[in-house]
């Protein structure tokens, strides 16, 4: 905190500290004046007394100022004017009436809020009369806002002031520790808030140490105690987080959390602060300055507990992801290894293949060699045999020759026999067909000049013919030619026979 801030803080502390209770709707400690007594105006029965304006104003001044030396007056500010001199001029009014009012610089400088139109205020002062104008007014010495509206005003004023100073800026928000080991709770040790907080933390988060930093959170001096608690925690150190707050109540009950010193102490704290004031709907200045605003004290405890629960989940999630990834890496590497190993085996197998192939080739080579040599050997043997036994060759040829000769003889013999047979057959046939056989049976053959005569035309008369008979031949001459048939021939043949 800068020295300027400190100065301001001190200034505000002194301003705020005196009588916070006076903010509340309490009856003024000094009762308003009773029914005013009858004005002590001089009464002249006989003759009307004539006053000068000055006289009467002076008289009224004396009367009024003597009567209303110190009164409490409540009303709504209107026609508010802050003069350059520093004095405030305004009116106080109610539903049907109004009164002029003035508050001098020396008095209004002590105010912890800025008076403004529409503000309901309770002032203490005296009635004064301004003789030159015949006006009277209330001369205010103190002024306090009245009711929630007025507190709201004060709240808004402080809020906008601190906002302008940047106390609510996100850049100043400290992040809560992930796992608070030591939790400080600035609150009343007898209040409802600490019970709620311990209840929740006891049930949902048993991982930390909790220190209750006692501070009254209600009534006069509460703000200062809260400030002292925050500062003490910072001085002692060792706290991971502070919960500052109280349970629900009226706006006046919770007012200390709207005080500037509290706001500045929260802002100055090195320890992250969770504000936890009242109920969900209650917003205090402390909520705006705090690093995190919890709607209730219970919620503040849940924030702490929740972060522990979330952490557990996060860690388990990390562990799960790690394991999954590791399994993946392992299986991936394993498959790579297997791949590599299978490729390592390959050359070996290739060697085996080559060896087998070499064996096979060798085998084939041997077989081929064997076959070749066998063939060659056989050939050689044959050749050798042929070379070694020419006699055998000769013998074989002789034998062949013999066979051939025998065959030939046989063949010749056969041929001759066959011819013989055929000849005999032919002879027999010839014999059977021989004209001699016919002649032997009685027939004759007539030849003319060596030609058989079958037709008389072949011969001439007196031509000499030869007639062949079975037992000899006749030489005859042609007497006449007769175209006779075979009958005539028969006769002829018969006659000749005879």
């Amino acid at each position, binding site marked *: 905190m800068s020295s300027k801030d400190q100065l301001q803080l001190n200034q505000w502390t002194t301003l705020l500290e005196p009588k916070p209770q006076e903010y509340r709707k309490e009856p003024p400690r000094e009762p308003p004046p009773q029914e005013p007594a009858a004005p002590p105006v001089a009464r002249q029965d006989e003759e009307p007394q004539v006053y000068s304006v000055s006289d009467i104003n002076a008289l009224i001044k004396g009367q009024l100022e003597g009567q209303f030396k110190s009164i409490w007056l409540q009303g709504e500010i209107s026609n508010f004017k802050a003069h350059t001199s520093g004095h405030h001029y305004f009116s106080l009014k109610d539903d049907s009436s109004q009164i002029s009012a003035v508050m001098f610089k020396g008095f209004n400088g002590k105010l912890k809020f800025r008076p403004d139109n529409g503000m309901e205020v309770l002032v203490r002062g005296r009635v004064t009369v301004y003789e030159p104008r015949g006006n009277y007014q209330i001369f205010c010495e103190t002024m306090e806002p009245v009711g929630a509206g007025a507190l709201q005003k004060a709240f808004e004023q402080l809020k906008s002031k601190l906002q302008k100073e940047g106390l609510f800026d996100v850049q100043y928000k400290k992040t809560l520790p992930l796992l608070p080991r030591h939790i400080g709770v600035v609150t009343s040790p007898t209040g409802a808030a600490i019970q709620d907080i311990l209840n929740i933390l006891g049930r949902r988060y048993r*991982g930390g140490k*909790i220190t209750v930093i006692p501070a009254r959170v209600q009534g006069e001096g509460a703000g200062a105690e809260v400030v002292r608690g925050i500062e003490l925690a910072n001085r002692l150190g060792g706290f991971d987080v502070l919960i500052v707050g109280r349970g629900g109540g009226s706006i006046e009950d919770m007012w200390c959390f709207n005080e500037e010193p509290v706001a500045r102490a929260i802002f100055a704290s090195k320890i992250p602060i969770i504000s936890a004031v009242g109920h969900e709907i209650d917003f205090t200045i402390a909520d705006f300055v705090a690093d995190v605003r919890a709607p209730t004290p219970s919620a503040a405890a849940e924030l702490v507990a929740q972060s522990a629960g979330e952490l557990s989940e996060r860690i388990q999630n990390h562990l799960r992801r790690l394991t999954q990834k590791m399994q993946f890496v392992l299986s991936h590497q394993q498959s790579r290894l297997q791949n590599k190993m299978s490729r390592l085996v390959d050359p070996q197998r290739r060697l085996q293949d080559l060896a087998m192939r070499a064996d096979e080739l060798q085998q084939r080579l041997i077989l081929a060699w064997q076959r070749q040599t066998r063939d060659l050997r056989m050939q050689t043997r044959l050749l050798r045999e042929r070379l070694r036994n020419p006699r055998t060759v000769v013998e074989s040829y002789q034998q062949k020759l013999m066979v051939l000769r025998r065959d030939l003889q046989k063949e010749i013999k056969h041929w001759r026999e066959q011819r013989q047979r055929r000849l005999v057959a032919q002879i027999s046939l010839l014999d059977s067909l021989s004209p001699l056989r016919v002649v032997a049976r009685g027939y004759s053959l007539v030849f003319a000049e060596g030609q058989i005569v079958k037709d008389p035309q072949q011969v001439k008369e007196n031509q000499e013919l030869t007639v062949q008979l079975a037992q000899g031949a006749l030489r005859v001459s042609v007497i006449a030619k007769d175209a006779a048939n075979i009958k005539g021939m028969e006769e002829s043949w018969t006659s000749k026979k005879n």
Partner: protein
Amino acid sequence: MDFEKKLARLEEIVGKMEGGDVSLEDSLKLFEEGVQLSRTCQKELDQAEQKVELLLGQDAQGQAQTQPFKA
């Protein structure tokens, strides 16, 4: 190493593992460290001890004066 550092390291390890391009040897080392870290972190989370104290003030040495507190 405090809890947050451990957690940050665990997160770094998970990120590295998932980022790929880590040799098998490094993966195994990271995995072992990660599992170790997650165990100790979880253990710290699960510590069942809870102490509640009331702060009385500061002694002359600046130390906290406390007494057990029961709400």
